[in-house]
């Protein structure tokens, strides 16, 4: 039995944010519960009120609009992402991360919003959401605001949300490039499906290393994306106090000729931009080693895919 708290399951956003606006009592949001229930059990949190947000239709929707993008409700569970055709097809790095997050059972409960708001440095969904340039949609009684995901995290388990704010969802702009890169029709992604008529990403992937092959937290995770304009996007998990978009590495690579040599360049450079620590799960040395391995593999794979596209 967990500690004493009140449970509410609002069915309107208005009611939900009203609950959250309570100042007298500590309120916790229950989404998938895979982090919250552990924290409750360990008495790390002792809220007076727990708000279950799975009754909010705005938060449980997963909608793809061609030309615009993917809107993911905060309460969408990880397996829905892993299994959704639109995610697999247009946001393959996200689908890949969803497939390797925790265990199958946990993926049935853990949600996108939970993975983001828990703000773990090792959150598997965050690197792909960063490379797809996710924007968070946040609501409160005071109104709503949009926060680029890259500006969301402030430290280990820390983020910019106010206590009365609710993450409604995350929006990913379509991977169809509006600027229309030349010669990229009939695009082939490294891990994405083929047969697209749009000008789309070349590919995207998520590479994760655990201590064993099954069910584990990431000791390093890397999301990589090559968009239709042949621009790289990278982000890492468990390599810094927060998940990190690697802008500088992107700039470095995007300024170079698009050749297989980029893989080695990325491997050499990535460690300038990450700040891993040694902990019970891995040493900083191994994290650095693996960051280089993964970025080499990712770039190599994406360059090959991009090269084929040109050919």
């Amino acid at each position: 039995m967990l500690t004493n708290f009140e449970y509410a399951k609002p069915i309107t956003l208005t009611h939900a944010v009203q609950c959250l606006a309570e100042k007298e009592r500590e309120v916790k949001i229950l989404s998938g519960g895979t982090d919250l229930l552990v924290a409750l059990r360990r008495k790390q949190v002792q809220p007076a009120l727990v708000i279950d947000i799975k009754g909010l239709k705005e938060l449980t929707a997963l909608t793809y609009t061609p030309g615009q993008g993917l809107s993911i409700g905060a309460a969408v569970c990880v397996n829905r992402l892993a299994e959704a055709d639109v995610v697999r097809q247009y946001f393959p790095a996200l689908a890949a991360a969803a497939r390797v997050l925790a265990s199958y059972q946990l993926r049935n409960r853990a949600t996108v919003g939970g993975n983001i708001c828990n703000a773990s440095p090792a959150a598997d969904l965050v690197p792909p959401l960063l490379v797809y340039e996710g924007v968070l949609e946040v609501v409160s009684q005071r109104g709503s605001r949009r926060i680029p995901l890259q500006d969301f995290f402030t430290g280990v388990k820390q983020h910019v949300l106010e206590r009365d704010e609710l993450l409604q969802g995350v929006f990913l702009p379509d991977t169809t490039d509006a600027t229309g890169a030349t010669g990229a029709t009939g695009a082939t992604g490294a891990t994405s499906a083929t047969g697209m008529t749009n000008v789309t990403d070349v590919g995207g992937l998520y590479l994760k290393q655990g201590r064993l092959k099954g069910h584990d937290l990431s000791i390093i995770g890397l999301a990589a994306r090559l968009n239709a304009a042949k621009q790289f996007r990278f982000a890492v998990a468990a390599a810094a106090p927060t998940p990190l978009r690697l802008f500088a590495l992107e700039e470095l690579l995007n300024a170079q000729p698009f050749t297989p040599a980029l893989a080695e360049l990325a491997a050499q450079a990535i460690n300038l931009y990450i700040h891993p620590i040694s902990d019970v799960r891995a040493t900083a040395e191994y994290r650095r080693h693996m960051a280089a391995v993964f970025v080499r593999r990712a770039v190599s794979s994406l360059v090959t895919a991009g090269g084929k596209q040109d050919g």
Partner: protein
Amino acid sequence: MAKHVITCGINGAAISAEVDSGQTLLEFLRGELSLFGAKEGCGEGECGACTVMVNGRAVNSCLMLAVEADGCEVKTVEGLAQGGKLAILQEEFVQHDALQCGFCTPGMLMSARALLDRTSDPGEEEIKVAIAGNLCRCTGYLPIVSAIQAAAKREREETASE
């Protein structure tokens, strides 16, 4: 402790019960319904011994509040055997010696059931992924994988012959 009345299906039977807000689904199943099949091996979602199916999906019942099951269909290991006869999956676990101490078995069976409900012909790797959240310290898993493969084959044959 705040009380809530929930209505849900448990192994096909509709029930209505009062639960505490802080009660997990696992505690509810074991404590209130005397369904002792699902076990607590860690209480933190790492071992899978508490796995049950909620609306057809395998979940860790230790990480779900009982009140969250309101309106859901819950299936536990006790719901597998029908009419006093073991289900195919259970028979294959027995035949392949896919259990030793048996403590992980109810959860393992429910992960396997959920897998076979979503795909009738899972590959070996797919099976391993589906049960990677169910720790077993005794069997070395391979007999479990064989049992699930054998059950899938028999279930496909049964469906084909219907």
